């Protein structure tokens, strides 16, 4: 078991990257294990999204290595499902819910081919898992923010990936969607998937995570809730006078 764990983990070593000409990440190192949900947190502008973008190869690295099973992560990007921030999407785009979820099968299908009946079934099942099966024919723009987020979660599920990156999935959503999201996290965890979640929430939901990464340009702390949520670490991340009930 231990052998498998060390083989399939995602190792990030000494990551340094800049975004639009200013240094966003400095010497960030951490490890993600399968079957674990990791919470990446830090103040606004700490570089949380930049970490995801650097992992996904969307921005160039200055230095550092990213390994999956001891080989460059870049070769394994097809195993990754990514849920971007809601603000990056134009919700007036003319597309139905069903077709958004099917986008999760585009890469697996390959060039010059139509989606197979199996791919469509996978998309339908994913939509069902997030409780949105009845909305397939609806335009994405007619849904509430929480419902739209669930559709994007379904798209990620449809990719049948091994690694899941969520960029602020809890922003602007309802309680029902929140519950669905934590359900999905628990299922994926049980399936041995690797999850990295960016979230601002320092409140009641910390119990859903196995590991915490506290970031502000550099990695300030990593580990369990107890290790990361210490007043000293939080002050170093968020500045003096920072106060939370959970700490």
């Amino acid at each position, binding site marked *: 078991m231990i052998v498998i764990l060390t083989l399939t983990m995602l190792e990030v070593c000494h990551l340094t990257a800049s975004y639009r000409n200013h240094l966003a990440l400095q010497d960030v190192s951490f490890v993600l294990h399968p079957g674990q949900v990791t919470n990446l947190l830090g103040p606004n502008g700490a570089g949380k999204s930049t970490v995801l973008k650097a992992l996904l190869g*969307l921005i160039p690295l200055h230095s550092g290595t990213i390994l999956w099973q001891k080989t460059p992560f870049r070769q394994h*990007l097809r195993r990754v499902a990514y849920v971007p921030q809601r603000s*990056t*999407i*134009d919700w007036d785009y*003319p*597309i*139905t819910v069903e077709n*958004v979820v099917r986008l999760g099968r585009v890469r697996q299908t390959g060039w010059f081919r139509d989606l197979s009946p199996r791919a469509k079934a996978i998309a339908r099942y994913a939509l069902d898992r997030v409780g949105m099966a009845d909305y397939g024919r609806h335009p994405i723009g007619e849904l509430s923010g929480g419902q739209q987020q669930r559709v994007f979660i379904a*798209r990620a599920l449809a990719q049948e990936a091994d690694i899941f990156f969520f960029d602020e999935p809890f922003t602007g959503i309802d309680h029902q969607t929140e519950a669905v999201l934590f359900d999905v996290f628990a299922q994926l965890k049980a399936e041995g998937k690797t999850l990295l979640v960016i979230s601002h929430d320092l409140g009641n939901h910390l119990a859903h995570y196995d590991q915490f990464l506290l970031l502000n340009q550099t990695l300030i702390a990593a580990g369990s809730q107890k290790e990361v949520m210490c007043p000293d670490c939080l002050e170093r991340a968020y500045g003096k006078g920072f106060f939370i009930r959970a700490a």
Partner: protein
Amino acid sequence: MFNPFTFLLEPLQFAFMRDALLMGAILGVLCAVTGSYLIVRQMSMIGDVIAHSVVPGISLAFFWGWDLTLGAFITGLLSAIVVALIEQRSPVKVDAAMSLTLTSFFALGILLIARLRTNQVDLTKLLFGDILEVTPSDVWRTALITLGILLLVKLFYKELLFYSFDPLGAQASGLPVQWLYLGLIGAITLTIVATMQVVGVLLVTALLIGPAITAYLWVKELHQMMILGGILGALATVGGMYSSYYFDLPSGPAIVLVIFSGFVITLLFSPRQGLLTRHWRHPNAQP
């Protein structure tokens, strides 16, 4: 007495009208398909940039004795690349980059026309087009370009849908988004080069955007927007040509205004989005 058959058939007795109508209908379809991508990627203005930036290419091609289409294609494509580079490599926002690139390429074009003594390039025709000078070989060439682009859109439809809806997600999933962008810009430049003969570089964006955005108010999926937009585009160009024939109007502006009329009617009366339909349904709602 008004006879609709005579009304419709009379212009068709002239060969130049038949060619022009056919050309207009084909372009109506082509523009709606490529224009749909411009709209959903929120880069309608890039159509205007490319349209103005073909002028230096035409001037140079004329001077060197090349095919004008080739010259137009090269500088049109170049302008879109310049905009993308400025946007990616600097903090300059895209609208400023577009305005500057558009005017600079256009200025270069005018300058080249003056300096290279390519005065035979008729600036008025370049700016406003002249569909009545369309030859059968022009129609053939446009038909081929249209077929080619439609085939490519069909082949890469699911990738282009992903890229145009969620560029970041598409890139993260490993799609070569730079190439998709370049392909899209290439198709749009080709569309503009084919269309400017009909409406001129100043009005070409109307044909690219108008029918597709009108269709957008009626339907809920991209491919429906392309199909309905294509039908509307063909109807609008043909309608514009008939009004140009019967009321002795310049054809390019006539086409553009027919397109705009269709858009305004839709804006007011479309079942889901119409301003007036919504008002009738919920009389007390605030706009």
